[in-house]
Protein backbone atom coordinates (compact mmCIF):
# COMPACT_ATOMS: atom_id res chain seq x y z
CA UNK A 1 0.00 0.00 0.00
CA UNK A 2 1.31 3.47 -0.85
CA UNK A 3 1.39 6.17 1.80
CA UNK A 4 1.74 9.92 1.66
CA UNK A 5 3.11 12.46 4.08
CA UNK A 6 1.34 15.78 4.34
CA UNK A 7 3.78 18.16 6.04
CA UNK A 8 2.94 20.97 8.46
CA UNK A 9 5.04 23.77 9.93
CA UNK A 10 4.48 22.65 13.55
CA UNK A 11 2.65 20.16 15.71
CA UNK A 12 -0.58 22.15 16.26
CA UNK A 13 -1.70 22.38 12.61
CA UNK A 14 -0.70 18.72 12.15
CA UNK A 15 -2.91 17.78 15.10
CA UNK A 16 -5.73 19.93 13.83
CA UNK A 17 -5.38 18.21 10.48
CA UNK A 18 -5.47 14.84 12.21
CA UNK A 19 -8.64 15.84 14.04
CA UNK A 20 -10.32 17.03 10.80
CA UNK A 21 -9.40 13.83 8.93
CA UNK A 22 -10.40 11.53 11.79
CA UNK A 23 -13.80 13.18 11.94
CA UNK A 24 -14.21 12.36 8.27
CA UNK A 25 -13.24 8.74 8.90
CA UNK A 26 -9.81 9.02 7.29
CA UNK A 27 -7.07 7.07 9.03
CA UNK A 28 -3.95 9.07 9.70
CA UNK A 29 -1.35 9.72 12.36
CA UNK A 30 1.03 12.48 13.35
CA UNK A 31 4.79 11.91 13.11
CA UNK A 32 7.90 14.04 12.89
CA UNK A 33 8.73 15.22 9.39
CA UNK A 34 12.03 13.84 8.05
CA UNK A 35 14.65 16.58 8.31
CA UNK A 36 15.36 16.70 4.57
CA UNK A 37 11.72 17.48 3.80
CA UNK A 38 11.52 20.47 6.12
CA UNK A 39 13.81 23.26 5.05
CA UNK A 40 12.79 25.46 8.01
CA UNK A 41 13.92 22.85 10.54
CA UNK A 42 11.47 21.02 12.76
CA UNK A 43 8.04 20.00 11.60
CA UNK A 44 5.30 17.40 11.84
CA UNK A 45 3.46 15.41 9.19
CA UNK A 46 0.35 13.35 8.75
CA UNK A 47 0.71 9.88 7.27
CA UNK A 48 -2.30 9.06 5.13
CA UNK A 49 -3.04 6.41 2.54
CA UNK A 50 -2.33 7.56 -1.02
CA UNK A 51 -5.94 6.94 -2.01
CA UNK A 52 -7.14 9.30 0.74
CA UNK A 53 -4.90 12.21 -0.24
CA UNK A 54 -7.24 14.10 -2.63
CA UNK A 55 -10.14 14.08 -0.15
CA UNK A 56 -7.79 14.85 2.74
CA UNK A 57 -6.42 17.90 0.99
CA UNK A 58 -9.90 19.05 0.11
CA UNK A 59 -10.91 18.79 3.76
CA UNK A 60 -7.78 20.53 5.03
CA UNK A 61 -8.32 23.40 2.62
CA UNK A 62 -12.01 23.62 3.51
CA UNK A 63 -11.20 23.78 7.24
CA UNK A 64 -8.32 26.20 6.62
CA UNK A 65 -5.65 23.95 8.10
CA UNK A 66 -2.41 25.16 6.50
CA UNK A 67 -0.12 22.41 5.23
CA UNK A 68 3.17 22.71 3.41
CA UNK A 69 3.81 19.86 0.98
CA UNK A 70 2.73 16.34 0.11
CA UNK A 71 5.19 13.48 -0.42
CA UNK A 72 4.45 10.04 -1.81
CA UNK A 73 6.30 7.00 -0.49
CA UNK A 74 6.35 4.27 -3.10
CA UNK A 75 6.38 0.54 -2.32
CA UNK A 76 10.12 0.43 -3.09
CA UNK A 77 10.77 3.06 -0.41
CA UNK A 78 11.44 5.94 -2.81
CA UNK A 79 9.88 9.23 -1.83
CA UNK A 80 8.83 11.99 -4.21
CA UNK A 81 7.08 15.30 -3.79
CA UNK A 82 3.64 15.51 -5.31
CA UNK A 83 2.39 18.63 -7.01
CA UNK A 84 -0.65 19.92 -5.13
Amino acid at each position, binding site marked *: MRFCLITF*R*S*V*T*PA*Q*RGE*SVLHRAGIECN*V*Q*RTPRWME*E*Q*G*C*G*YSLWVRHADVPFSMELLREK*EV*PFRKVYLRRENGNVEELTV
Partner: protein
Amino acid sequence: MIYLDNGATSFYKPVGVSDAVRRAMFTCANPGRGGYPEAMAAANTVFRCRQRASEMFDCQPEQVIFTANCTHGLNIAINTLVKPGNKVVISGFEHNAVTRPLHFFGASVIVAGRKLFDWDNTLGEFEKALKSGVSAAIFTHCSNVFGYILPIEELAALCRQYEVPFIIDAAQSAGVLPVKLKSLGADFIAMPGHKGLLGPQGTGLLLCEKLPKPLLFGGTGSNSVSQEMPDFLPDRLEAGTLNVPGIAGLEAGLSYIAGRGIERISSAEHKQAMYCAAGLEKMGIRVFKGEHQSATVSFVPQTDCEEFAELLSQKGIAVRAGLHCAPLAHESAGTLQSGTVRLSFGHDAAIWQSERFLAAISSIIHKKFL
Protein backbone atom coordinates in the same frame (compact mmCIF):
# COMPACT_ATOMS: atom_id res chain seq x y z
CA MET B 1 -13.33 26.02 55.44
CA ILE B 2 -16.05 27.89 53.58
CA TYR B 3 -14.16 29.10 50.55
CA LEU B 4 -15.59 32.34 49.18
CA ASP B 5 -12.52 33.65 47.40
CA ASN B 6 -13.07 32.20 43.94
CA GLY B 7 -12.43 35.66 42.49
CA ALA B 8 -8.78 35.10 43.43
CA THR B 9 -8.59 31.46 42.43
CA SER B 10 -10.89 28.46 42.52
CA PHE B 11 -9.81 26.22 45.39
CA TYR B 12 -12.03 23.15 45.50
CA LYS B 13 -11.43 21.91 41.96
CA PRO B 14 -13.20 18.93 40.42
CA VAL B 15 -11.30 15.71 41.32
CA GLY B 16 -10.50 15.12 37.65
CA VAL B 17 -8.23 18.17 37.67
CA SER B 18 -5.64 16.84 40.12
CA ASP B 19 -5.91 13.37 38.56
CA ALA B 20 -5.10 14.83 35.15
CA VAL B 21 -2.13 16.81 36.53
CA ARG B 22 -0.69 13.67 38.14
CA ARG B 23 -1.28 11.57 35.01
CA ALA B 24 0.49 14.14 32.85
CA MET B 25 3.48 14.16 35.17
CA PHE B 26 3.86 10.40 34.73
CA THR B 27 3.12 10.15 31.02
CA CYS B 28 4.11 13.36 29.25
CA ALA B 29 7.48 14.55 27.97
CA ASN B 30 8.00 17.77 25.99
CA PRO B 31 5.20 18.61 23.52
CA GLY B 32 5.89 19.64 19.94
CA ARG B 33 9.53 18.61 19.98
CA GLY B 34 9.93 14.83 19.69
CA GLY B 35 8.05 12.07 17.92
CA TYR B 36 8.33 9.28 20.52
CA PRO B 37 5.18 8.24 22.43
CA GLU B 38 5.77 10.34 25.56
CA ALA B 39 6.38 13.47 23.50
CA MET B 40 3.29 12.77 21.42
CA ALA B 41 1.30 12.11 24.60
CA ALA B 42 2.28 15.59 25.78
CA ALA B 43 1.42 17.12 22.40
CA ASN B 44 -1.95 15.37 22.41
CA THR B 45 -2.68 16.54 25.96
CA VAL B 46 -1.93 20.11 24.96
CA PHE B 47 -3.97 19.86 21.76
CA ARG B 48 -6.99 18.39 23.57
CA CYS B 49 -7.03 21.39 25.87
CA ARG B 50 -6.59 23.81 22.98
CA GLN B 51 -9.44 22.16 21.12
CA ARG B 52 -11.71 22.10 24.16
CA ALA B 53 -11.03 25.80 24.78
CA SER B 54 -11.63 26.66 21.12
CA GLU B 55 -15.06 25.01 21.32
CA MET B 56 -15.94 26.89 24.49
CA PHE B 57 -14.72 30.28 23.23
CA ASP B 58 -15.72 30.03 19.58
CA CYS B 59 -12.39 30.19 17.78
CA GLN B 60 -9.86 27.94 16.06
CA PRO B 61 -7.53 25.81 18.22
CA GLU B 62 -4.43 27.70 17.06
CA GLN B 63 -5.96 30.98 18.23
CA VAL B 64 -5.80 29.63 21.79
CA ILE B 65 -2.47 30.52 23.41
CA PHE B 66 -1.32 29.08 26.71
CA THR B 67 -0.08 31.70 29.13
CA ALA B 68 1.01 31.63 32.76
CA ASN B 69 -2.05 33.58 33.89
CA CYS B 70 -4.46 36.27 32.73
CA THR B 71 -2.00 39.08 33.49
CA HIS B 72 0.53 37.47 31.14
CA GLY B 73 -2.05 37.42 28.33
CA LEU B 74 -3.08 41.02 28.97
CA ASN B 75 0.56 42.12 28.83
CA ILE B 76 1.01 40.45 25.43
CA ALA B 77 -2.21 42.00 24.11
CA ILE B 78 -1.42 45.49 25.41
CA ASN B 79 2.16 45.30 24.15
CA THR B 80 0.77 44.46 20.71
CA LEU B 81 -1.84 47.20 20.46
CA VAL B 82 -0.48 50.09 22.52
CA LYS B 83 2.47 52.34 21.74
CA PRO B 84 3.83 55.09 24.00
CA GLY B 85 1.58 58.14 23.96
CA ASN B 86 -1.39 56.27 22.44
CA LYS B 87 -4.81 57.23 23.76
CA VAL B 88 -6.51 54.17 25.26
CA VAL B 89 -10.01 54.00 26.73
CA ILE B 90 -10.62 51.65 29.65
CA SER B 91 -13.57 51.10 31.95
CA GLY B 92 -13.66 52.46 35.48
CA PHE B 93 -13.40 48.93 36.86
CA GLU B 94 -10.10 47.70 35.52
CA HIS B 95 -7.58 45.65 37.47
CA ASN B 96 -3.91 46.58 37.84
CA ALA B 97 -3.24 43.82 35.28
CA VAL B 98 -4.56 46.34 32.74
CA THR B 99 -3.62 49.68 34.27
CA ARG B 100 0.00 48.88 35.20
CA PRO B 101 1.04 47.68 31.72
CA LEU B 102 -0.67 50.76 30.26
CA HIS B 103 1.29 52.93 32.67
CA PHE B 104 4.52 51.09 31.81
CA PHE B 105 3.98 51.40 28.06
CA GLY B 106 3.29 55.13 28.46
CA ALA B 107 -0.30 55.17 27.24
CA SER B 108 -2.56 58.15 27.75
CA VAL B 109 -5.53 56.59 29.54
CA ILE B 110 -9.15 57.73 29.37
CA VAL B 111 -11.36 56.17 32.04
CA ALA B 112 -14.93 55.78 30.80
CA GLY B 113 -18.00 54.74 32.80
CA ARG B 114 -17.50 54.84 36.54
CA LYS B 115 -21.05 54.19 37.73
CA LEU B 116 -21.50 50.73 39.16
CA PHE B 117 -24.10 48.46 37.54
CA ASP B 118 -25.10 51.25 35.11
CA TRP B 119 -24.92 50.06 31.52
CA ASP B 120 -26.16 53.38 30.09
CA ASN B 121 -23.34 55.21 31.81
CA THR B 122 -20.73 52.67 30.70
CA LEU B 123 -21.90 52.65 27.08
CA GLY B 124 -22.44 56.43 26.87
CA GLU B 125 -19.01 57.25 28.26
CA PHE B 126 -17.29 54.66 26.09
CA GLU B 127 -18.95 55.99 22.96
CA LYS B 128 -17.85 59.50 23.83
CA ALA B 129 -14.25 58.35 24.20
CA LEU B 130 -14.33 56.25 21.03
CA LYS B 131 -15.74 59.20 19.08
CA SER B 132 -12.92 61.41 20.35
CA GLY B 133 -10.39 59.08 18.68
CA VAL B 134 -8.49 56.43 20.60
CA SER B 135 -5.94 53.82 19.53
CA ALA B 136 -7.38 50.97 21.56
CA ALA B 137 -10.08 50.04 24.07
CA ILE B 138 -9.71 47.66 26.98
CA PHE B 139 -12.50 46.54 29.24
CA THR B 140 -13.13 43.89 31.79
CA HIS B 141 -16.10 41.59 31.30
CA CYS B 142 -16.80 41.59 35.01
CA SER B 143 -15.37 43.65 37.87
CA ASN B 144 -13.26 41.53 40.20
CA VAL B 145 -14.30 43.73 43.14
CA PHE B 146 -18.01 44.33 42.68
CA GLY B 147 -19.09 41.65 40.23
CA TYR B 148 -20.41 44.32 37.86
CA ILE B 149 -20.96 42.59 34.50
CA LEU B 150 -20.18 45.09 31.78
CA PRO B 151 -22.22 45.11 28.53
CA ILE B 152 -19.41 43.55 26.51
CA GLU B 153 -21.48 42.73 23.45
CA GLU B 154 -22.57 46.34 23.13
CA LEU B 155 -19.08 47.65 23.93
CA ALA B 156 -17.63 45.32 21.32
CA ALA B 157 -20.19 46.54 18.77
CA LEU B 158 -19.21 50.15 19.52
CA CYS B 159 -15.51 49.37 19.08
CA ARG B 160 -16.24 47.65 15.79
CA GLN B 161 -18.39 50.59 14.69
CA TYR B 162 -15.58 53.07 15.39
CA GLU B 163 -12.95 50.61 14.09
CA VAL B 164 -11.02 50.66 17.36
CA PRO B 165 -9.08 47.49 18.24
CA PHE B 166 -10.03 46.12 21.62
CA ILE B 167 -9.02 43.72 24.38
CA ILE B 168 -11.38 41.99 26.80
CA ASP B 169 -10.23 40.97 30.26
CA ALA B 170 -12.25 37.83 31.00
CA ALA B 171 -10.52 37.12 34.31
CA GLN B 172 -13.77 36.88 36.24
CA SER B 173 -16.09 35.67 33.51
CA ALA B 174 -14.41 32.79 31.67
CA GLY B 175 -16.21 29.60 32.66
CA VAL B 176 -19.08 31.53 34.23
CA LEU B 177 -20.43 33.73 31.43
CA PRO B 178 -20.45 33.15 27.66
CA VAL B 179 -17.26 34.47 26.04
CA LYS B 180 -17.05 34.15 22.25
CA LEU B 181 -14.08 35.46 20.30
CA LYS B 182 -15.62 35.27 16.85
CA SER B 183 -18.95 36.92 17.58
CA LEU B 184 -17.44 39.63 19.80
CA GLY B 185 -14.82 40.43 17.17
CA ALA B 186 -12.23 41.24 19.85
CA ASP B 187 -8.58 41.45 18.91
CA PHE B 188 -7.62 39.65 22.12
CA ILE B 189 -9.39 38.05 25.06
CA ALA B 190 -7.30 37.14 28.09
CA MET B 191 -8.35 34.81 30.89
CA PRO B 192 -6.85 32.82 33.75
CA GLY B 193 -7.02 29.03 33.75
CA HIS B 194 -7.25 28.74 37.51
CA LYS B 195 -10.40 30.74 38.34
CA GLY B 196 -13.71 29.98 36.64
CA LEU B 197 -12.05 27.45 34.31
CA LEU B 198 -11.07 25.39 37.38
CA GLY B 199 -7.54 24.55 36.22
CA PRO B 200 -4.37 24.71 38.31
CA GLN B 201 -2.56 27.94 39.12
CA GLY B 202 0.05 28.89 36.55
CA THR B 203 -2.35 28.43 33.64
CA GLY B 204 -4.05 31.01 31.48
CA LEU B 205 -5.35 31.52 27.96
CA LEU B 206 -5.04 34.30 25.45
CA LEU B 207 -7.43 34.16 22.51
CA CYS B 208 -5.95 35.96 19.52
CA GLU B 209 -7.73 37.35 16.52
CA LYS B 210 -4.77 39.54 15.58
CA LEU B 211 -1.16 38.39 15.13
CA PRO B 212 0.47 39.45 18.43
CA LYS B 213 3.93 40.72 19.28
CA PRO B 214 5.76 38.12 21.35
CA LEU B 215 6.87 38.99 24.86
CA LEU B 216 9.03 35.89 25.20
CA PHE B 217 11.53 34.63 22.63
CA GLY B 218 13.04 31.18 22.21
CA GLY B 219 12.51 27.67 20.93
CA THR B 220 9.10 26.68 19.65
CA GLY B 221 9.81 23.35 17.96
CA SER B 222 9.11 24.96 14.57
CA ASN B 223 10.95 27.08 11.97
CA SER B 224 14.12 26.31 13.92
CA VAL B 225 16.45 27.58 11.22
CA SER B 226 15.12 31.12 11.52
CA GLN B 227 16.14 33.50 14.30
CA GLU B 228 12.78 35.25 14.04
CA MET B 229 9.86 34.01 16.07
CA PRO B 230 7.37 32.12 13.85
CA ASP B 231 4.79 34.35 12.21
CA PHE B 232 1.97 31.94 12.98
CA LEU B 233 -0.04 30.94 16.04
CA PRO B 234 0.25 29.41 18.54
CA ASP B 235 4.03 29.06 18.09
CA ARG B 236 4.61 32.80 17.92
CA LEU B 237 3.68 33.17 21.59
CA GLU B 238 4.68 29.82 23.04
CA ALA B 239 8.47 29.91 23.35
CA GLY B 240 9.94 27.38 25.77
CA THR B 241 8.43 24.29 27.32
CA LEU B 242 4.74 24.51 28.12
CA ASN B 243 3.24 23.77 31.53
CA VAL B 244 1.88 20.39 30.40
CA PRO B 245 0.63 19.14 33.80
CA GLY B 246 -1.13 22.48 34.31
CA ILE B 247 -2.64 22.32 30.83
CA ALA B 248 -3.80 18.75 31.47
CA GLY B 249 -5.53 19.96 34.64
CA LEU B 250 -7.03 22.88 32.76
CA GLU B 251 -8.44 20.51 30.17
CA ALA B 252 -10.10 18.53 32.95
CA GLY B 253 -11.56 21.78 34.32
CA LEU B 254 -12.89 22.72 30.89
CA SER B 255 -14.42 19.27 30.46
CA TYR B 256 -16.16 19.55 33.82
CA ILE B 257 -17.61 22.94 32.85
CA ALA B 258 -18.73 21.70 29.44
CA GLY B 259 -20.41 18.72 31.08
CA ARG B 260 -22.18 20.67 33.77
CA GLY B 261 -22.94 23.75 31.64
CA ILE B 262 -21.83 27.35 32.14
CA GLU B 263 -25.38 28.55 32.70
CA ARG B 264 -26.08 26.01 35.43
CA ILE B 265 -22.85 26.84 37.26
CA SER B 266 -23.43 30.56 36.93
CA SER B 267 -27.01 30.37 38.14
CA ALA B 268 -26.10 28.32 41.24
CA GLU B 269 -23.32 30.75 42.15
CA HIS B 270 -25.46 33.82 41.55
CA LYS B 271 -28.29 32.51 43.69
CA GLN B 272 -25.99 32.14 46.71
CA ALA B 273 -24.29 35.49 46.15
CA MET B 274 -27.63 37.28 46.09
CA TYR B 275 -28.80 35.36 49.16
CA CYS B 276 -25.72 36.55 51.05
CA ALA B 277 -26.10 40.11 49.77
CA ALA B 278 -29.69 40.22 51.01
CA GLY B 279 -28.64 38.76 54.37
CA LEU B 280 -25.88 41.34 54.79
CA GLU B 281 -28.28 44.17 53.96
CA LYS B 282 -30.71 42.90 56.57
CA MET B 283 -27.90 43.23 59.12
CA GLY B 284 -27.49 46.88 58.13
CA ILE B 285 -24.23 46.38 56.26
CA ARG B 286 -23.48 48.46 53.16
CA VAL B 287 -23.53 46.05 50.25
CA PHE B 288 -22.83 46.76 46.57
CA LYS B 289 -25.63 45.13 44.68
CA GLY B 290 -27.07 45.72 41.24
CA GLU B 291 -28.90 44.38 38.26
CA HIS B 292 -25.91 43.23 36.21
CA GLN B 293 -23.97 41.33 38.82
CA SER B 294 -22.05 38.07 38.94
CA ALA B 295 -21.53 35.88 42.01
CA THR B 296 -19.10 38.42 43.47
CA VAL B 297 -20.33 40.77 46.18
CA SER B 298 -18.42 43.48 48.02
CA PHE B 299 -19.45 45.03 51.31
CA VAL B 300 -18.09 47.62 53.70
CA PRO B 301 -18.08 46.39 57.28
CA GLN B 302 -18.34 48.69 60.30
CA THR B 303 -14.69 48.06 61.09
CA ASP B 304 -11.49 47.84 59.08
CA CYS B 305 -12.05 45.47 56.18
CA GLU B 306 -8.81 43.52 56.73
CA GLU B 307 -9.58 43.05 60.43
CA PHE B 308 -13.07 41.93 59.54
CA ALA B 309 -11.75 39.39 57.03
CA GLU B 310 -9.35 38.12 59.68
CA LEU B 311 -12.26 37.56 62.08
CA LEU B 312 -14.06 35.66 59.32
CA SER B 313 -10.94 33.60 58.71
CA GLN B 314 -10.87 32.63 62.38
CA LYS B 315 -14.40 31.31 61.87
CA GLY B 316 -13.34 29.24 58.87
CA ILE B 317 -14.59 31.62 56.19
CA ALA B 318 -12.15 32.57 53.43
CA VAL B 319 -12.82 35.95 51.81
CA ARG B 320 -10.62 38.66 50.34
CA ALA B 321 -10.38 42.16 51.80
CA GLY B 322 -8.66 45.38 50.80
CA LEU B 323 -8.31 46.85 47.33
CA HIS B 324 -8.21 43.58 45.36
CA CYS B 325 -5.43 44.93 43.07
CA ALA B 326 -8.06 47.21 41.55
CA PRO B 327 -7.68 50.71 43.01
CA LEU B 328 -9.41 52.18 39.96
CA ALA B 329 -12.56 50.16 40.64
CA HIS B 330 -12.52 51.25 44.28
CA GLU B 331 -12.02 54.85 43.26
CA SER B 332 -15.03 54.56 40.93
CA ALA B 333 -17.20 53.18 43.74
CA GLY B 334 -15.84 55.54 46.41
CA THR B 335 -14.24 52.79 48.49
CA LEU B 336 -10.56 53.55 47.88
CA GLN B 337 -10.04 54.62 51.50
CA SER B 338 -12.06 51.92 53.24
CA GLY B 339 -11.52 49.01 50.87
CA THR B 340 -14.16 46.29 50.91
CA VAL B 341 -14.64 42.70 51.93
CA ARG B 342 -15.37 40.56 48.89
CA LEU B 343 -17.07 37.21 48.75
CA SER B 344 -17.03 35.30 45.50
CA PHE B 345 -18.74 31.97 45.00
CA GLY B 346 -17.49 29.12 42.85
CA HIS B 347 -18.84 26.06 41.06
CA ASP B 348 -19.52 24.34 44.42
CA ALA B 349 -21.84 27.13 45.66
CA ALA B 350 -24.45 25.82 48.08
CA ILE B 351 -26.94 27.19 50.58
CA TRP B 352 -25.08 25.77 53.57
CA GLN B 353 -22.08 27.92 52.68
CA SER B 354 -24.24 31.04 52.60
CA GLU B 355 -25.89 30.20 55.89
CA ARG B 356 -22.58 29.58 57.62
CA PHE B 357 -21.19 32.78 56.16
CA LEU B 358 -24.17 34.85 57.37
CA ALA B 359 -24.07 33.19 60.78
CA ALA B 360 -20.38 34.07 61.11
CA ILE B 361 -21.07 37.68 60.12
CA SER B 362 -23.90 37.92 62.59
CA SER B 363 -21.79 36.50 65.38
CA ILE B 364 -18.92 38.93 64.67
CA ILE B 365 -21.24 41.93 64.55
CA HIS B 366 -23.07 41.03 67.76
CA LYS B 367 -19.94 40.20 69.69
CA LYS B 368 -17.91 43.17 68.59
CA PHE B 369 -20.30 46.00 68.00
CA LEU B 370 -23.52 45.47 69.95
